[in-house]
């Protein structure tokens, strides 16, 4: 999208007329791409199955999962889990070429699958992998794609209404792909809730063959360097997150955030300026262009709460903000606020939490 406020259409939009072309009428069912990489399924896939279930029920169609991977790459496990998280059907593409993510092989598998089995809705996670794939698939299929959706719904006329932030979160817009199929959308991790898992639930597996040879693929994976444990931030999925902002004043003071995080068994993160200043790595950035988090508790110290930050943390159950400025925007959406100097309050909190937890341990 180039613009949320479209100019008055001089030329009529391709899809303005709401008559679905004949050849798309056979497109049916809701699909979720299950992101399987190095044996691990990205949790966003389960979140999408949870959301996809609702859409499929409304449309009275099947919810299908697409699982792709190498023969020994965890496809079987991912298939079982897909059923337990709500899929009725799993399209399973197993091929050595799918062992590591590569755009060519995954795009080929996905587009062929769509062309032969024709879904009306296709959802992917807005991860690096999902975004890399979604753009290629949508362009190959010449269909519409709503990126980074935060809300999905089915309209009365069965079309997908995808709502997403635009202009850095200052506005939301609802986007439709009326005359093209499938209607594609990506959703960021942690935006949708994790569904209840139903152990033992099963469904139908439909195998599909990848029509590609290694010699067709120009891109090769030379190496995979796993993140060092210290850098491996599971920020998006942490139950407690402590974060700092520019208000901390210096990189040295950021230590106070880490210390509190440690006492709480929490992950730590920060606002974007800290990444730009090199105080923290980009994996630790929280917000619109960083991670979306949904912790049970979020503690924000010296963060003003700009809209770009806000959209990444609004899903938290509880927010405690520490800020010297009683008018800081973060106090407009935090649940609890301390107006005070974070460099003093943070150590006090660390100590008080430690004491409280110690007291609890003694008691039990």
């Amino acid at each position, binding site marked *: 999208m*180039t613009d949320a406020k479209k*100019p008055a259409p*001089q*030329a*009529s*939009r*391709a899809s*303005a007329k709401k008559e679905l072309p004949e050849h798309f009428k056979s497109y049916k069912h809701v699909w979720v791409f299950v992101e399987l*990489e190095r044996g691990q399924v990205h949790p966003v896939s389960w979140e999408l199955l949870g959301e996809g279930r609702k859409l499929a029920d409304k449309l009275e169609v099947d919810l299908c999962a697409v699982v792709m991977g190498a023969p020994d790459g965890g496809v079987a496990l991912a298939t079982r889990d897909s059923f337990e998280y709500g899929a009725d059907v799993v399209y399973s593409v197993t091929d050595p070429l799918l062992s590591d993510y590569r*755009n060519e092989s995954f*795009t080929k598998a996905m587009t062929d699958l769509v062309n032969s089995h024709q879904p009306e809705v296709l959802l992917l996670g807005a*991860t*690096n*992998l999902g*975004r*890399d794939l979604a*753009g*290629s698939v*949508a*362009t190959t299929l*010449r269909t519409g*794609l709503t*990126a*980074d959706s935060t809300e999905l719904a089915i309209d009365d006329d069965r079309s997908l*209404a995808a709502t997403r*932030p*635009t*202009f850095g979160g200052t*506005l*939301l*817009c*609802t*986007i439709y*792909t009326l005359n093209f199929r499938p209607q594609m959308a990506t959703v960021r991790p942690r935006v949708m809730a994790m569904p209840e898992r139903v152990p033992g639930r099963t469904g139908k597996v439909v195998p599909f063959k990848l029509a590609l040879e290694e010699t067709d693929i*120009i891109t*090769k994976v030379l190496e*995979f360097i*796993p993140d060092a444990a210290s850098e491996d931030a599971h920020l998006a999925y942490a*139950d*407690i997150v402590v974060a700092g902002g520019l208000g901390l004043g210096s990189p040295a003071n950021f230590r106070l955030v880490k210390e509190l995080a440690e*006492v709480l*068994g*929490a992950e730590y993160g920060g606002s974007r300026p800290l*990444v730009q200043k090199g105080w923290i790595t980009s994996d630790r950035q929280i917000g619109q262009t960083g991670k979306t988090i949904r912790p*049970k*508790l979020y503690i924000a110290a010296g963060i003003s709460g700009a809209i770009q930050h806000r959209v990444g943390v609004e899903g938290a159950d509880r*927010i405690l903000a520490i800020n010297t400025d009683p008018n800081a925007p973060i*106090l*407009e959406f935090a*649940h*609890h*606020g301390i*107006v*005070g100097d974070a460099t003093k*309050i943070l*150590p*006090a*909190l660390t100590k008080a*939490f430690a004491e409280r937890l110690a007291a*609890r341990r003694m008691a039990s």
Partner: protein
Amino acid sequence: MHIVVCIKQVPDSAQIRVHPVTNTIMRQGVPTIINPYDLVVLEEALRLRDQFGGKVTVLTMGPPMADESLRKALACGADAAVLLTDRFFAGSDTLATSFALSTAIKKIDAEEPVDIVFAGKQTIDGDTAQVGPGIAKRMGLNQLTYVSAIRSLDLGSRSIVVERRAEGGTQVLTTGLPCLITMLEGSNVLRRGSLPDMFRAARAEVTTWNAEQAGVEDITQCGLRGSPTVVKKVFAPKPRNEKAVLVETEGKSDAEIARAAIDALFTANPKLEAEIPELVLAS
């Protein structure tokens, strides 16, 4: 070596306001900037050119005023600039944008073969991160997104090795040229041109193409008509009504404030207190 960098002129989203009644963007007084993520790839392109020789062409699609961004890029050292501007391009979504840009790049390529196309990771207005992959697919370029570093480039064998950010680690990938690259924000701070660079940029010709000049044959693939997505509704996020409950600080020590805050938290959410010890154990 010939590198094309796609840059977009965007309103500075930090300064955007929403009309409280009509929910439309109030553009008045909102300055435009080059999409910050595009500066990252522009600098990378300039470094590659400095190292391997050749030429950097910057390309943008936008209103006539978008030539300002191109001149900025020229002043930083880009060699040539192309502006795609035509009312037929208005209202493009990602599919139509990638169509227009890829058509223009094909024309640029026909005049002087292109080895690498750079696009920003995402824009701050549209914010889809889809235009880059769209261009790659339409042009059949090898696609490398979320690259954190370019390790090596071999013009002889026409191959490139990059580090790409994946979930839980870094992929080291190699592919052949021509390719399309999008990059993460890193240490690439855009350089500052010399005074003669500024003069050169001010005097430079910005090549301006309308749809026809860019080589578009099927106008229905452009702009509104070429966009499968329809924006039906634009609205402001609902503000949360409740404001933060402030912990009383008047005349209290930091320790007292901290304890009061913890009490407030655990009172509001009793389960939390039980869960924390498990988290500590788990970590």
